[in-house]
């Protein structure tokens, strides 16, 4: 039987929550932006009036102000956003137990087995729209389809407080390839250079051709474009069972211009990730590095270790290697840096025969990590650290472990 999957996307989520408590904000162009002092001064969300003036998410406050001088800026209130995110999710659970969140404002719902109980897809979708509007005071866009990828496209097409059904490729083939999940700026540029402008273009090529262009990711995109995505919508109790990845990222107080800066930020991030992974008692095998440059182009790379580890040193070293090996450079300085680890397990693999004294090194590193952590726990985070971080205390003055926010793992991360 064909599955029925909804993708529910809360419209301008952060801005809507603000407007819910301050109805007067509905009548003025308004945006939520990080603290400008801290240089997190980019637009996180905006209301419809601001959108009409051309204000875009992720642009700097001054850019937005250029387009819309009377733009009202508010600082984010994450507690409220998380509260409403959970509240909306608990409403979804009344319709199915298969609810998978993708960020605070998006969820997939597999309602295949609930249709008979409620009557029809239309009843469920319209009821969810109505209840979220009336009971919670927010609006949704819902995409309805047989797979997660098309459902997500559907919610992008659907206007505010409405839904859009995608049942055939013809419904979406004209959309730009960039709308497809996992097609970022770089991938889209590359696709265009091969003459693949629309989702239809990708769908009509072949998996082999796509693989030739983009490797494994390309093949996946072909499946995505055709809606051949069989991945399940996770059940809600699956959620906390397994941690799939642990990571930290930071928007630096100033742009990162050279290797010294990068090493400094990576030191802090690696320490924090290693400390969190030790808190969980886990080991990782894969290290990811993601960088967003000044133009907000994002790129992420990953590598796997020979043996799993829980050491800060291994995260740091591999992040640097990733940077060097993957053709990153500092032509455009970086604004945001992230490190994460995945491929987690609870057991340290019994190492191969230790010919080169690696075990000794690991033990020493681990002792160092633990001692570092113990001192931090007792005397505060900034009481001890690598000499490197003292070179620029401003740049390194963040404590990612206690400030961290959990972001959705990537689609492939699961």
């Amino acid at each position, binding site marked *: 039987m064909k599955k029925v999957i909804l993708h529910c996307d809360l419209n301008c989520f952060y801005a809507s929550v603000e*407007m*819910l*408590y*301050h*109805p007067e904000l509905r009548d003025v162009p308004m945006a939520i932006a990080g603290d400008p002092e801290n240089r997190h001064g980019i637009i996180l969300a905006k209301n419809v009036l601001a959108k009409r003036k051309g204000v875009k998410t992720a642009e700097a406050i001054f850019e937005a102000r250029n387009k819309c001088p009377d733009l009202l800026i508010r600082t984010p209130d994450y507690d409220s956003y998380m*509260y409403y995110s959970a509240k909306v999710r608990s409403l979804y659970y009344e319709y199915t137990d298969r609810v998978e969140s993708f960020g605070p404002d998006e969820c997939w719902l597999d309602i295949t087995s609930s249709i008979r109980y409620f009557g029809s897809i239309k009843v469920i979708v319209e009821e969810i729209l109505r209840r979220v*509007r*009336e*009971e*919670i*005071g*927010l609006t949704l866009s819902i995409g309805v389809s047989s797979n997660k990828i098309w459902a997500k496209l559907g919610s992008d097409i659907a206007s505010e407080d409405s839904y859009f059904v995608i049942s055939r490729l013809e419904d979406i083939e004209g959309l730009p390839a960039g709308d497809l999940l996992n097609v970022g700026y770089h991938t889209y540029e590359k696709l265009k250079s091969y003459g693949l402008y629309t989702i239809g273009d990708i769908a009509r090529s072949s998996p082999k051709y796509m693989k030739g262009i983009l490797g494994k990711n390309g093949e996946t995109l072909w499946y995505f474009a055709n809606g051949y995505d069989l991945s399940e919508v996770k059940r809600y109790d699956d959620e906390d069972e397994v941690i799939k990845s642990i990571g930290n990222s930071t928007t630096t107080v100033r742009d990162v211009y050279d290797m010294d800066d990068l090493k400094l930020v990576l030191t802090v991030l690696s320490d924090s990730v290693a400390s969190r992974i030790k808190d969980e008692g886990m080991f990782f095998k894969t290290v990811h590095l993601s960088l967003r440059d000044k133009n907000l182009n994002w790129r992420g790379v990953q590598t796997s270790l020979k043996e799993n580890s829980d050491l800060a040193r291994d995260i740091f070293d591999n992040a640097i290697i990733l940077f060097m090996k993957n053709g990153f450079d500092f032509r455009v300085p970086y604004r945001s840096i992230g490190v994460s680890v995945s491929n987690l397990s609870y057991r340290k693999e019994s190492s191969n025969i230790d010919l080169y004294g690696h075990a000794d090194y690991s033990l020493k590193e681990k002792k160092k990590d633990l001692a570092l952590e113990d001192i931090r726990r007792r005397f505060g985070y900034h009481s001890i650290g690598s000499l490197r971080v003292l070179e620029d205390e401003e740049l390194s003055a963040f404590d990612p472990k206690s400030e961290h926010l959990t972001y959705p793992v990537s689609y492939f991360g699961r």
Partner: protein
Amino acid sequence: MKRKYVDVICLNDQAGNIKPLYLIWDNERKIPILKVKEICPRASLKVGGSGLRYTCLFDSNRIRHLYYDRGKWYVELNDNVL
């Protein structure tokens, strides 16, 4: 209209329900709530906010909505009411 936060005296029963008994207006008037007619989750479109909406019957057949939102109570207040 605007949102006015108010003090409320409640009964927390053994089943975990919260029943508002008195509304304290401006720290001086204690107004009894005769009956809670309906409880439902609702957003207040007039004054903003959302939570559990208690439709309450006060004396002389006056019905008012009391909203319970994350531990706080509020009413919708007309601007011309002092």
